[in-house]
């Protein structure tokens, strides 16, 4: 639904060049919620602005719903009518809502319809319908200044849907909200994704957002996507940084000469008493350093960090046993040793 190829953005000031995007290839499938995470300055914001060409990429192409927007934009710096028409089919919500304070809630939602040239009565009907959808039908006559942050973002979402978009871009939509409100806004986005088949591309610095609603995710660093894929696949990828960020399991080893192992449980393995089997079979003591259990896309995924007595060489057999049981096993690097990272087959 959204495809970027070799997207590059370089900001030039007088004597400096800043590379904000460094050849980004992004592929968002129709109907999925795709999250791009990264620290501030990683280029997420530039990336999402390049998708509807609020920001002109220095090179590379952007395709949304089968249309090459970069070709529509041409060489001109200003948005021509072809690009503007394409933008009406792409909704966007912002971190700071960007509602017009001079208009009522209903008039704010009507604004994109005015731009589309929809007649007054039809605008009104559609605006009220959308406000109903986001649960703010009773606030139609209020001004944005009278709303809470969460309500403002609901208006922002209603407004972004006015042009019946297939794609919604969300630029840190929940970053200015408290955790409770964040959950309700994410739930709303999830509902819209399922009810309307809306494809959502969101950028965020909060891992919880990805955990809560994303089907796929990408990690950005220094203007590049360093990792991407379906969240469930990422969790199954050994040594995945994103998986580790999403489900951090802490815990320091209790002393030297021990082996620390990170385990990831999927599906059936999650319900098997693997640890106690391991302990009984090899007669070893296992300490659990940290553990987390999450539900991703309706599937339970568990992560656990355990400690086995003895060095890695002494534990080859028990680790082999864990792999046999269908767990994903990552042996944590030992201090002073070379990075020992073993993947599942």
């Amino acid at each position, binding site marked *: 639904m959204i495809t970027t190829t070799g997207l590059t953005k370089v900001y030039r000031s007088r004597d400096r060049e800043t590379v904000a995007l460094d050849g980004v290839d992004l592929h968002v499938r129709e109907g999925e919620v795709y999250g791009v995470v990264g620290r501030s300055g990683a280029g997420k914001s530039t990336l999402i602005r390049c998708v509807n060409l*609020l920001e002109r990429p220095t090179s590379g192409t952007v395709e949304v719903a089968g249309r090459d927007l970069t070709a529509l934009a041409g060489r001109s710096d200003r*948005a021509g009518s072809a690009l*503007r028409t394409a933008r*009406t089919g792409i909704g966007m919500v*912002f971190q*700071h809502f960007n509602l017009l*304070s001079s208009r009522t809630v209903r008039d704010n939602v009507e604004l994109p319809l005015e731009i589309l040239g929809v007649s007054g009565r039809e605008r009104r009907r559609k605006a009220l319908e959308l406000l109903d959808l986001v649960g703010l039908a009773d606030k139609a006559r209020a*001004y*944005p*200044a009278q709303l809470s942050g969460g309500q403002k973002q609901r208006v922002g979402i209603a407004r972004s849907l006015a042009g019946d978009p297939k794609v919604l871009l969300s630029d840190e939509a929940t970053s200015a909200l408290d955790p409770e409100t964040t959950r309700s806004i994410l739930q709303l986005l999830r509902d819209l994704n399922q009810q309307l088949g809306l494809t959502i591309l969101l950028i965020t610095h909060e891992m919880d957002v990805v955990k809560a609603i994303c089907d796929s995710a990408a990690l950005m660093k220094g203007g590049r996507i360093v990792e991407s894929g379906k969240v469930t696949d990422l969790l199954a990828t050994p040594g995945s940084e994103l998986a580790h960020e999403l489900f951090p399991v802490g815990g320091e080893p209790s002393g030297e000469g021990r082996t620390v192992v990170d385990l990831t449980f999927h599906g059936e393995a999650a319900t098997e008493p693997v640890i106690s089997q391991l302990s009984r079979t090899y007669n070893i003591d296992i300490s659990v350093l940290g553990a987390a259990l999450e539900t991703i896309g309706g599937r339970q995924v568990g992560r656990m960090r355990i400690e086995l007595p003895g060095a890695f060489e002494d534990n080859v057999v028990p680790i082999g046993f864990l792999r046999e049981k269908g767990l994903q096993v990552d042996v944590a690097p030992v201090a002073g040793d070379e990075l020992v990272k073993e993947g599942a087959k």
Partner: protein
Amino acid sequence: MSWAEMQPLLSQACWETLIMVGWSTLIAVAGGLPLGVLLVLTDRGGLLRNATVNKAVGVVVNLGRSLPFLILMISVLPFTRWVIGTTIGAEAMVVPLSIGAIPFLARLVETAVREVDGGLVEAVQAMGGSTWTVVRKALLPESLPSLIAGLTTTVIALIGYSAMAGTIGGGGLGDLAIRYGYQRFETSLMLVTIGVLIVIVTAVQLAGDLAARGASHRGRTSTTPRLRLLRPAAATEAS
């Protein structure tokens, strides 16, 4: 001088001031509003980035602003004669007053429009709005309270300028005060004229503040212009 004598002089002078200020305000809005918006749009980072146009407009505006009004008034006399056909009377004075007020208002408009959050511009663009749509739907409505405040300042400045215009034959309240109060030592008329001017300026400021408040929907926390002259009214409304 009795009130019966003063009354016709005063009403004539008020009418002349009204003509001068009224027309020049209208022309100042017609000229200053587009110029102010243009200054913002063509500036670096604006929607119509154009350094040449921005510089050119900026220079013209600064030129108009730096010239003392008295000198501007006299130097445009030939132009006034060409436009109106005469250099005397309230109508003729509309020309220099407008020329003085356009750059004045343009700067105030520029400041007001620049205050509008860039995010709103981005939002309208993301909806598929053109530059004209951004100006019409976001920049102007969002800066309306500040624009009204700027217009109020301009009108009051114009009342002051119009008094100066009286000295070279424009008529109006300033002319009255000088001819009778200063040259004929009619102190009572002078005082009444000052009183009338104070009332007019106060009324304009009050109307401007009320209108700006009415146009603002940002709530009380932000930079809403407060009523400066009518505290009790503001207090009752807040309760």
